[in-house]
């Protein structure tokens, strides 16, 4: 069973629908036991980091998520929360991937939020990136992003390079929205579902 962590944020339905299109049933849940027992877990999220952490705390999910041993995929804000901290609201987050999430720098010709279809700079091979190359485009919509470091599988460039796909142990994250990235996004979700546990 695949659990989608019900962090109470907006747009969680889209992830579930994307999995349905792949023929995969999922359970949207905040039940600690259900999440711990799931074969795989998705941590979605749209909105601000402080609100996202507050919701996880309110539902007692912080330690639960931190302690998961099965493959976990953070999406968008869900990925940002995997890092140590965020400049958005100056908060501590889950601390599963080192680094601090920061605001993307705006400049002439570089609008923020980073909104639209962008390519990846593939840095390390991973089953999660199977089928993608430098021309594959994914849909991004965010203003904050994590730093590129040794846990970055792929980076993206928008004014500055930032972490687009991260992985540390069983925790992975994507800054883009696979559920809204057409065929490439469906492939990413498929890759996650097929990753060795």
């Amino acid at each position, binding site marked *: 069973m695949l659990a989608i962590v019900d962090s109470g*944020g*907006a*747009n*969680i*339905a*889209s992830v579930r*629908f*994307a999995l*349905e*299109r792949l023929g995969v049933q999922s359970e949207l849940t905040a039940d600690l036991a259900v999440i711990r027992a799931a074969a795989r877990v998705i941590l979605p999220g*749209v*909105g*601000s980091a402080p*609100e996202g952490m507050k919701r996880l705390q309110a539902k007692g999910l912080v330690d639960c998520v931190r302690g998961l041993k099965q493959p976990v995929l953070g999406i968008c*804000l869900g990925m940002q929360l995997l890092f140590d901290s965020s400049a958005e609201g100056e908060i501590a987050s889950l601390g599963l991937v080192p680094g601090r999430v920061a605001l993307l720098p*705006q400049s002439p*010709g570089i*609008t*923020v*939020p*980073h*909104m*639209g*279809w*962008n*390519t990846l700079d593939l840095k390390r091979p991973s089953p999660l990136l199977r089928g993608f190359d430098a*021309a594959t*485009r994914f*849909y*991004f*919509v*965010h*203003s904050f992003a994590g730093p590129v470091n040794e846990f970055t599988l792929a980076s993206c*460039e*928008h004014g500055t390079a930032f972490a687009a796909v991260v992985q540390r142990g069983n925790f992975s994250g994507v800054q883009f*929205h696979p*559920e*809204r*990235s*057409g*065929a490439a*996004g*469906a492939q990413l979700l498929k890759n996650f579902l097929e990753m060795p546990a």
Partner: protein
Amino acid sequence: MLARRLIPCLDVRDGRVVKGVQFRNHVDMGDIIELAQRYRDEGADEIVFYDITASSDGRTVSTEWVTRVAKVIDIPFCVAGGIRSLDDARKLLHSGADKVSLNSPAIENPALLGELAAEFGSQCVVVGIDSRAENGDYFVKQFTGDPTKTRGTRWRTVDWAREAQKLGAGEVVLNCMNQDGERKGYDLAQLKLVRAVLTIPLVASGGAGAPEHFRDVFRDAGVDAALAASVFHSGAIPIPKLKQYLATEGVIVRP
């Protein structure tokens, strides 16, 4: 590098897609889901669904068809029409919409933009501006979905765009009314003016009639995305061909 976006806009009325010229004389263009799927298959980068009479009728977008769209569509979509509260927005975002676009209600209650941004993040808060050229300047119009209810506002377009950004909007769709449905090209002068005061993405709307118009609006007005309706719906400009053309003209697009 980030690709410029092409966005078909589906005007929705009573659950069907319609199109009028300068917001008048609407004709039926087809079923929402069918058209959404067609655009997804053709390579649209995003879709906007605009319930054209929701605002003037005093109601909001129906979540019923938003959920149906979210189930079948795997590209982002934005919904617009009569969204006037946090609760309206929450229902639509929870139904699967990626963004909500506010027009008249944002003018009546600008603070709502900040509340939406704080709750959901500014990336899903779009402000639609209907703007008309008058006496050498540009002014914001309201309730443009129904010509009998359309009226002016106190806002100069440039001032309102700047204010909306300050309050928390994450994107502006600028609909240049003088151009809408006329197919004579986007209003480059006006779009350039608004582009210059914004750091958030700007979407051009109104006037697309030929592939060159898209090239010009990306190259000369520097917009992030171009929205169009009739030229896409009628098949006059197929999106795959338009993207090929733009790529040969040096505009970065998603193939």
